[in-house]
């Protein structure tokens, strides 16, 4: 009985997590977009967008390693953005 209850609890946890995962994919997409804007604001100086001042950019640079690596990866995926959006905003 105890094992059965444990199994049911585990199953419910997985089920619950799957539903959250499914619905939070939309929010994750929005987060990605916001990260892109954030990266543009904070690192735009590297691509010629004069904001913010270079001194500030250089000072925050050591804290931006994760963002930089994500942006490099995203820039490599720019020719495949639509597939990802289709995957998130599914139709069926």
């Amino acid at each position, binding site marked *: 009985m105890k094992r059965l209850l444990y199994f049911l609890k585990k199953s419910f946890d997985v089920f619950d997590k799957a539903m959250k995962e*499914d619905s*939070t994919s939309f929010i994750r997409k929005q987060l990605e977009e916001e990260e892109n804007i954030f990266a543009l604001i904070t690192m735009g100086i590297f691509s010629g967008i004069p904001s913010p001042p270079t001194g500030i950019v250089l000072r925050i640079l050591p804290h931006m390693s994760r963002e930089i690596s994500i942006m490099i990866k995203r820039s490599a995926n720019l020719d495949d953005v639509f597939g990802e959006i289709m995957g998130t905003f599914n139709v069926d």
Partner: protein
Amino acid sequence: MSSLIVLIGAAFYIVSYFTYGKSLERNVVRADGSTPTPAIRLRDNVDYLPAHKFVLFGHHFASIAGAGPIVGPAIAVVWGWFPALLWVWFGNLFIGSIHDYLSLMASVRYDGKSIQYVSGKLMGESSKYIFEVYVYFTLILVVAAFMGVFGALASKSPAILTASTLFMVAALIEGQLLYKTKLPFWLSSAIGVALTILSIVVGFLWPFINVPSLNTLYWLQFIYIIFAATLPVWFLLQPRDYLNSYILWGGVIIATIAAVIAFRGFSWPAYTGFSAKVISGQPSPFWPTVPLVIACGALSGFHSIVGSGTTSKQLDNELSGLFVGYGAMFMEGMLSTIVITSIGAFGLVVFQGFADKIAAAGFDLAKMSSDATYFGQVGAAVINSKDVGIGGALGIFTKSFGQLLNVIGVPVKLGITLGGLWASAFILTTLDTTNRLARYAFQELVEPIKKVSKGLHGFLTDRWVASILAAAFGFFLIAKGGNAYTALWAGFAGANQLLASIAMLTAATWVKNVQKASTGMLAAVLIPAFFLWITVFSALIWFLVKVVPATTPVLQVILGGFVVIMLVLDVFLVINFFKNYNQGKKATAKA
């Protein structure tokens, strides 16, 4: 009989998974548990993030299962429940599940890139563009077909219209609870679920919304999708999709239990004839037109995009791919099996409830019960007749579903409202997401215009212009197309199946040139790919010759134009396939 069909269906899927599915995993994909997937190799906790296989299965299934696997089989049963069931089962086994699994795994081997990107790499860049054109046409036709399906249902049921409207309010409240209050997650979820149940109960007991005319319903949907698609996702789309998952899983679990313990014989004819009048009142030969009716329940091109767009970036292990990609398609087939079972067992009971109106509309119900051929000729007309008032394909499903749930003690009308909310919630979410997607797709499609005229390009890619254009096209097609939702549904399904055929041809090229599979295993992919291509191509020619001329001038021009363009592009696609098929390994994927 109902119990037997559900149990045979479940056994069929389980056996197929462990035999055919495992063989594909071993001999075609050669899945290797020790090879890190993109979710592991490229993990950044944002785009690439490994998920437990059960969690990913649930997420993937909820993404691929919408209103499609319900509506298609509910239209196709006019051929009889048996051919519809056969197409769902064998379409699943030989095409749909292979299509989903190989799209997912090809994407995994290409760093989680989408199938359209892979098709561009393996079959030339123009294949990628053709893919995008199909996607755009499919999205417009989805808007038109789903507006029509929802209109047909809601215009005949104040209960469902009330429940759907209240459910939208519940989703708005859920969004505020989740993101604007500090309530614990479990509590806001519980309140959301309670509000969903309340919507169903209020719709059932006090259907206070008067049903407007069909045209007003189309206008309301048009305005709704324009605004819904521009709202932030947390406001309506995300909380509604979250609550939708409870309805989906709740509906599947309750319906499965009811179908298994119903022990009900099938009164619906098993087979009504090869050329029953299914699509737009025309005699529709089962082959090749069945994929124009049953799309998502048997196979769907959209699945390849979902699988390769996001699921492939979350797959934790190559060995989980079969369970997620292949298994979720089987689960969707099981959902369609339950739809067919409920109509097979209770569809004629529903007809008997409308006996007077059926007789008044000039149909002979007694003859329908005894003469299968007659049923095939008039079945769709009865289901779709405004005078009879069943409410179209979704009407027959929801009413049969209500009868099915009555087996476990749920009042029929409550069951009907639940079934109606199940379908309508997915349709409304789909309309919202479709318009967002159509905007993106259109912006990609008109990219070449940028070189010719920057001003025109800027105008066309404006957020509002791109958004209104897709919604207006869809609205125009259904509102000025004489409410011909079965014709529009067939157009949508045809475009969707062409997408699937591109994905299958891409998969075949990948299996031959990159995976170097044996001739036998290659045939397991190549034969279904060509079978699908020939079937859909022939079906669309039939559609163009037989159905389009019988529609309104608006549909003749727009829908006919879409079909002609798709057929021409389809020829280019197959030329691309043959050009690239024998060129050996072109891309850098890891075999």
